[in-house]
């Protein structure tokens, strides 16, 4: 079985963001970088599938500058067999259609049976790449899965809908699934596996070799939302803050009678 998992390196969302000088994206200096959270679930599920079917080869793909290799090494240490690094220092500026175009161009002649992606990235958050890759490859896709089982060429998955409701679906491979938070418990790479990962193949492909589509949109400006104001900000010692809040609640609400 041939499996692909696509990951993205994103800033830690707790970071202090600044808008870059070009005004169209965030400044990527002084940020802590990590694997997109949704993709951690995708990698874990891909590794579990590989362990289940035994005879499987699992590739992890990531697009970005040299820096993303660090994140790819984590995926390799979690159990991916090989890495495909699409070298693109400008990947931050690429919109979902271009990113999907790059992935599908890479994947089109490799006969992947199952492709895993996160349901969205934490920074751009468009939630389009996975589904678009499947459309471009002409294979079926299921988005937002919170449960995954594979048996004899059939994927059984649960899609998360609103209000705690789930939809049970089945689909034959080849297929792509996009992974929602809570799908599984992503493993921590062990030290021996981190050491082994250093020896795994990590092939670098220039983006020009796999970018065959044009952008359909662009981010023309990035900015902080306007502060709505009105909200009171309180700082100080915990006990004083508790007293202050209690008097506010007494005045403004009916919960402390």
């Amino acid at each position, binding site marked *: 079985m041939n499996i692909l998992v696509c990951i993205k390196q994103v800033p830690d969302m707790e970071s202090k963001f600044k808008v870059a000088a070009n005004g169209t994206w965030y400044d990527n200096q002084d940020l802590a970088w990590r694997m997109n959270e949704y993709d951690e679930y995708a990698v874990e599920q891909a590794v579990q599938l590989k362990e289940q079917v035994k005879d499987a080869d699992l590739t992890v793909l990531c697009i970005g500058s040299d820096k993303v290799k660090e994140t790819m090494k984590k995926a390799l240490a979690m159990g991916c067999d090989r890495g495909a690094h699409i070298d693109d220092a400008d990947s931050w500026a690429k919109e979902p259609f271009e990113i999907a175009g790059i992935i599908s161009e890479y994947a089109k002649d490799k006969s992947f049976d199952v492709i895993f992606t996160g*349901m969205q990235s934490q920074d751009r958050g468009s939630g389009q790449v996975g589904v678009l890759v499947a459309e471009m490859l002409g294979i079926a896709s299921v988005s937002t899965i919170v449960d995954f089982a594979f048996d004899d060429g059939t994927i059984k998955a649960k899609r998360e809908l*609103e209000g705690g409701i789930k939809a049970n*679906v089945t689909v034959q491979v080849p297929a792509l699934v996009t992974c929602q938070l809570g799908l599984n418990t992503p493993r921590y790479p062990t030290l021996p596996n981190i050491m082994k990962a250093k020896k795994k193949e990590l092939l670098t492909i220039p983006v020009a070799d796999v970018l065959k589509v044009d952008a*359909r949109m662009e981010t023309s400006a990035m900015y902080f939302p306007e502060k709505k104001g009105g909200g009171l*900000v309180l700082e100080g010692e*915990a006990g004083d*803050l508790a007293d202050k809040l209690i008097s506010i609640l007494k005045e403004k609400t009916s919960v402390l009678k």
Partner: protein
Amino acid sequence: MKIVLIAEYRDGQMLSGYTELLGFAETMGAETVMFVAGSDAVLPAYDGKLYLADAAVCGEYNPDLHKQMILDVVAKEQPDMVAFCHSSYGWDLAPRVAFGMKAAQVSEVVEVKDGAMVAPACNSKLRRTVTCKTGQTVVTLQAGAFAPVEGGGTPEVEKIAVDGQGRVVFEGYEEAEAGGVDLSKAEVIVSAGRGIGKPENVAMISALAKALGGEYGASRPVVDSEWVEHNRQVGTTGQTVAPKLYLACGISGAIQHLAGMKKSEFVVAVNTDKDAPIGEVADVLIVADLLQFVPALTEKVQAL
């Protein structure tokens, strides 16, 4: 301008999101037609043309067939835009339709500014304005971003159908776990976010909730980590709540969480990060370490 609005129907009911699509269309000053895979027994209140597919035949959840029918409607109507709710249905179907239309897609639109779509980035810490290069566009709209407009009236129905099976087979719905707590009725909710740090701290949150005569809830990461059971999750994929007081502890304010608690009457947030998006909706933002503040508050409330 003409927009095809994609309404949603699930398990015998029209979902209310179409009223926000109508609100969006009004903002855009657009002419509209609507599509829904549903039933002629429950029609949207909409005084316009409705393309209606029979969900009992084509499936309530069938991306291949729904995509094809929407593309058929697009071919016939030649709209400038197709608009979905940013929901499990919308975000699954919109990229398929956009691909079929060779159109750009803007996801999770929160605002229209000088004709351009605005979408959030980085857990809503930032906003971005998006410019499309294609003639037609597809958008998904964030829940609550556009004020609902009650369409009223009865639609002029044109029934449509499509042949085929579709590759993704829908096997049925699974309801949320029954039992447990019903947060939708609580007057006070104290919610725990990732910022509580470790599962042992849930007790501190529940103690404050109890002191205030309410219930405790949680944001998604806390539920996913299995620190708190799912029926206490507040947000798009959990419960939608409307308490008199919502106290968010260590919750940064991801858009999905905000969607679930935005009807709260009074919101207090406790966070060490002054710039956390939760601060935007909070009436009071307490900038403090919740491990110190929450027990202090609990003690003082108990002493009242």
